[in-house]
């Protein structure tokens, strides 16, 4: 990209006012881009390349294990190991399940709240917008610590309230871990998604909505048939971001683990990769990272292709 164009480029249209161009646009642009490209190559491309390479090798310990281990080419052997491990497969399935259940619920909630905030007659809009967005302003770690205590047995005000009603609720039991983490994610990210959807709603020209109202369309009908189709790009964007967000799930389970020791330390793929790092199995950590990245890529692009085809068909 640093290929220099010939010194001065002739103006495309000779009749146009001769625009004063930078004398060597390619060289100047390269100079401006250099610091970013340097860091981008060193801190994005290089680690990705190194990780893919590491995923193809493994440490070989010879004989009695007295000599230093040597690195040998393993082909796709690490991938077979990772995918053959029921714990890692379980972590992939778990984030898929959370993605399939939690993401639609959260986005539906975000959409409903955004539509209600967008309705003309709604009162206290500023307050509500601020209230819904507050969880996003808290660091994820603080939110996770807070929720870990809100669900911890013996401390949780939720289980205490349930106890008063005669219900025995344990929000950190094996069966409840999924819903508990889903709730933490919904609490933390609904406001963020709502804000994106709400901004898209505000960009709809008021005439469109007024025309629908004049034609006798109810508020609900306007929302469902006019507004929702018009904010499709925002809905697609929030869905893709949420899918990617689910793939990188780490903070919530890792912090919940501190109050719920029954939570497996391979609960999510990144958690599993972190564990492999702790166990000094760098090749496995690399492999698991690559598998997760591929999965996130396939899912988000698969979703994009799907909506593009639907969009073209309709």
């Amino acid at each position, binding site marked *: 990209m640093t290929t220099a164009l010939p010194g001065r480029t002739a103006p495309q249209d000779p009749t146009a006012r001769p625009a004063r161009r930078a004398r060597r646009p390619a060289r100047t642009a390269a100079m401006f881009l250099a610091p970013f490209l340097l860091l981008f190559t060193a801190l994005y491309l290089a680690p990705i390349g190194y990780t893919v390479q590491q995923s193809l090798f493994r440490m070989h310990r010879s004989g009695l294990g007295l000599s230093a281990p040597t690195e040998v080419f393993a082909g796709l052997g690490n991938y077979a190991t990772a995918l053959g491990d029921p714990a890692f497969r379980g972590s992939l399935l778990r984030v898929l399940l959370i993605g399939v259940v939690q993401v639609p619920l959260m986005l539906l909630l975000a959409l409903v709240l955004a539509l209600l905030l967008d309705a003309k007659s709604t009162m206290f809009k500023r307050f509500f917008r601020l209230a819904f967005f507050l969880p996003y302003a808290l660091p994820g770690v603080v939110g996770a610590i807070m929720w870990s205590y809100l669900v911890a047995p013996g401390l949780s*005000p939720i289980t205490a309230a349930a106890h008063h009603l005669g219900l025995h609720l344990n929000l950190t039991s094996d069966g409840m871990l999924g819903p508990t983490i889903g709730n933490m994610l919904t609490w933390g990210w609904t406001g963020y998604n709502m804000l994106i959807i709400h901004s898209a709603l505000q960009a709809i020209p008021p005439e469109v909505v007024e025309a629908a109202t004049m034609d006798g369309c109810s*508020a609900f009908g306007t929302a469902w048939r006019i507004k929702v189709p018009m904010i499709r790009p925002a809905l697609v964007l929030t869905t893709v971001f949420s899918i990617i967000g689910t793939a990188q799930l*780490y903070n919530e389970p890792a*912090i919940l683990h501190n109050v719920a020791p029954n939570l497996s330390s391979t609960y999510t793929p990144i958690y599993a990769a972190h564990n492999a790092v702790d166990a000094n199995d760098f090749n496995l950590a690399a492999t698991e990272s690559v598998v997760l990245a591929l999965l996130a890529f396939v899912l988000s692009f698969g979703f994009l292709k799907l909506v593009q085809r639907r969009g073209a068909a309709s």
Partner: protein
Amino acid sequence: MTTPTRPARYPASRWLTLGVLLLASVYFLAPVWWLLVASTKTSSGLFSGNGFWFGDFALLDNLRDVFTRQGGIYWQWLGNSAVYAVGGAGVSTLISAMAGYALAKYRFRGRELTFNAVLAAVLVPQPLLAVPLYLMFSQLHLVNSFWAVLLPSMVSPFGVYLARIHAAAAVPDELIEAGRIDGAGEFRIFATIALRVMSPALVTIFLFQFVSIWTNYLLPVLMLADDHLQPVTVGVVGWQAQRAIGPGAPPLNVVVTAAMVSAIPLVVLFLSLQRFWRAGLTAGSVK
């Protein structure tokens, strides 16, 4: 407001809307209220009485404990977070502005390719990159150092994306031409004219990068074993994890207070710079 008859005709739906929104606010605000109340309680007070209302008021004792425990290491954690966040966000804002300006205002071969690479990188989430960075840095013997966290914080593809959009929309070509006619060099034009015009976008870029560094947990927890290098997120979770282990560990009220205090800088930033938040969040969706 243009159809004043509607609310009067449908008062029931209006109350229903208000009810739903109030219910949602309770869901989003009650946990934060619990956190605030919990940080004012004694350790035993947390396990008895109503979690959502005050008991024995011990906020000052809790704060004193947070800031003096382990020789006042909490101060160091806050300082580390500030250095990582201000340093990383400062450098990445400048670098992003330069790159975004070049992508918006110069025509050169490879421009689209570069921008597409930036766009693809926006979709690569930081946590997904943390393990690869750790693997590479450990090979280079960079782990457990200040640079291990500071260097990755300096790159922000999202910042480049925002800078390019803003430079394309807000920096007029005529202004750059006028600078050239006056005989200013390209870098001088950028530094004196473009940067000033782009300043609202720069605030947004800085803010987003600052927040993402301050809240980052996975990268520093992987990289930093030395607790004197750790940012406040890693430190506080470390205290929480110690609690599970046993004696000598910080009591629950101290962990809760430490978590609450670490969120204050972000809440202040959020409340004071609301319009810059919205500018960044909506840049991707309204095109």
